[in-house]
């Protein structure tokens, strides 16, 4: 049953192109994303902020923090945590 499903689904796959199978669509999506980033950076200058902390008033604080935080997160997870804790799947067996 399962094999049949898979078989039919593979055929299906060959006949029908999906949304992101076309590289053009991925490109459009990425462009929209980059544009929205730009808008977000600019729009901030038209806002009146009332920060709790001084650094919240700095220009583009949240954008920079979000970017840096994620890079730090991934780099630490990949280059420090993973070598320390990674074991084979049957480690406990």
């Amino acid at each position, binding site marked *: 049953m399962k094999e049949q*499903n*898979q078989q039919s*689904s*593979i055929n*299906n*796959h060959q006949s029908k192109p*999906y*949304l*992101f199978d076309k590289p053009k669509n991925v490109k459009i999506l*990425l462009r929209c*994303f980059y544009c*929205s*980033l730009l808008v*977000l*950076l600019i*729009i*901030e200058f038209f*806002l*009146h*902020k*009332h*920060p*709790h*902390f001084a650094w*919240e008033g700095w220009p*583009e*604080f*949240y*954008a*920079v*923090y*979000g*970017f840096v*935080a*994620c*890079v730090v*997160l*991934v*780099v*630490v*997870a*990949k280059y420090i*945590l*993973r070598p*320390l*804790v*990674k*074991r*084979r*799947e049957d*480690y*406990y067996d």
Partner: protein
Amino acid sequence: MTDPVPPVIIFMVGALLVPFIKGRWKSAFLLAIPVVGFINLISIGEGTHWVVGFLDYRLVFGRVDRLSLLFGYIFHIIAFIAILYSLHVKENLQHIAGLVYAGSALGAIFAGELLSFFVFWEMLTVSSIFLIWARRTNAALGAGFRYLLVHATGGLCLLAGIVLHVNQTGSIEFGYLGLNGLGTYLIFFGFGLNCAWPILHTWLTDAYPEATITGTIFLSAFTTKVAVYALARAFPGTEALIWIGAIMTGFPIFYAVIENDLRRVLAYSLINQVGFMVCGIGIGTALAINGAVCHAFNDILFKALLFMSMGAIMYRTGKINGTDLGGLYRTMPLTCVFCMVGAASISAFPFFSGFVSKSMVMDAAAGGHMRIIWFILLFASAGVFHHAGIKIPYFAFFSHDSGMRPKEAPIHMLLAMGIAAFLSVFIGSFPGALYSLLPYPVEYVPYTAPHVVGQTQLLFFSALAFTLLLLSGIYPAEMRCINLDADWFYRKGGRLFFHVMDRTLNKINRVCERVFVGGITGSLARISKDVVPRFILLGMVSFWILTGSRGEVLQMKKMNVYNDFLKGTLPVGIGAGVAGFFIVLLFVLS
């Protein structure tokens, strides 16, 4: 209309009746339980209900106030969603376990004193274990046993704490306790274990991903949230909780980035979200407590939604590892959309539920001038978007094409996900409804222009980081592996303990067996067998030699007496003679 009954009763009676209802009525019956429960709940007024005398104490099964009511509402809602999601399950055991589990959670939050609270608390553990074991794999069996042992330890701590506390104060009332004295510290620890505090958290990441597809939905909603409720009830404003909460938000996201099992990624993000609640309870201001319980309400919905979408994938493909999945948006578009709604909610995008509750805790931290805490929470907010918001949908539905073209999730699963998704968007867009239910009056306004733009910047630029890291190949690839966590100590430690005990105790056992069973006992038995005739012969032979018996005659006499003794066929006279001789001998020797 009849008088309302304790909410737990409806679920327990419902669970008892499950095996007797067959066929197509079963689904309707299962769904009716939380509906009837909800109608019952809204007809209960605030106040204290159902007080029962027990020994010298008064048990309270219905302490109904704004805090317990809020948890009551969401527990009914999520019970309905989880039951709807699991309608395809034929096995009664899972339905009963789910209902008893939900009922126990309701019993615990409406309990007004510590005794019945403790009983419901333990019932949570016992009923939930069946949702793990029902998966019927070796991994689930092992994880279930570890889950049981860890919770038994926590439960015993809690019990010891309650006994000490009641002994000290003479009151079993379950209200504000605060940290004073050993009893309350033990209670605090017991709550913390169920809350998945750092280092105590591994029961969660170990067991939840091993549970059944539907069981995980129940599990994600109740145990930790009852613990959050208990902390909010007994330890609001306890400073230690601020730091514990902040660490909880921070450390799991590193694990989530490198974890391959997508349900385990969600388990780590569950701890991360509970961290926001714990932190809010620790801050303890009206805004912070409101934020904590509001976030608990929202988290139950969007976390269940995310687990449901992953469960649907598992149901259709049988796989859950990031390495095996990918490209499923093609044939499971609705599940994909629901998953993204859950992802947006947990990441606190504007107009999604996380946005209106998480920021309350952040604001409370800022209002208390807690700089480091605020930075950790902000880091965690960016991080949660990274792993739960992007990683989960990306690796399951997009990423490389796994070649699988499974069917869309079954209709009841889609409905369950749809309800959770609708509620997440509704609460995010119209937070006033939920705010009006919170324990304290709410003055907080989530939708200000700087807040919306700031939060969107934070999220979009962490998405940018993800995109760039992925395109540059730095993003860690999913790998088939396990990542060590604090459970190493009891999993490897337990094995070491077993080996040490095996080596030492079993060696002692073997030596004892050799010495006592094989050695001393054997010799004693051999000696006892013929000690009497040998002893008698000693006397008799000298007598016979004196009377002149020699050679074969003597041998024959010896044989006869020896055999007669062993068989117990001595003539009466000789027996009496021997007994007399023995007594004389004893007399002489003493």
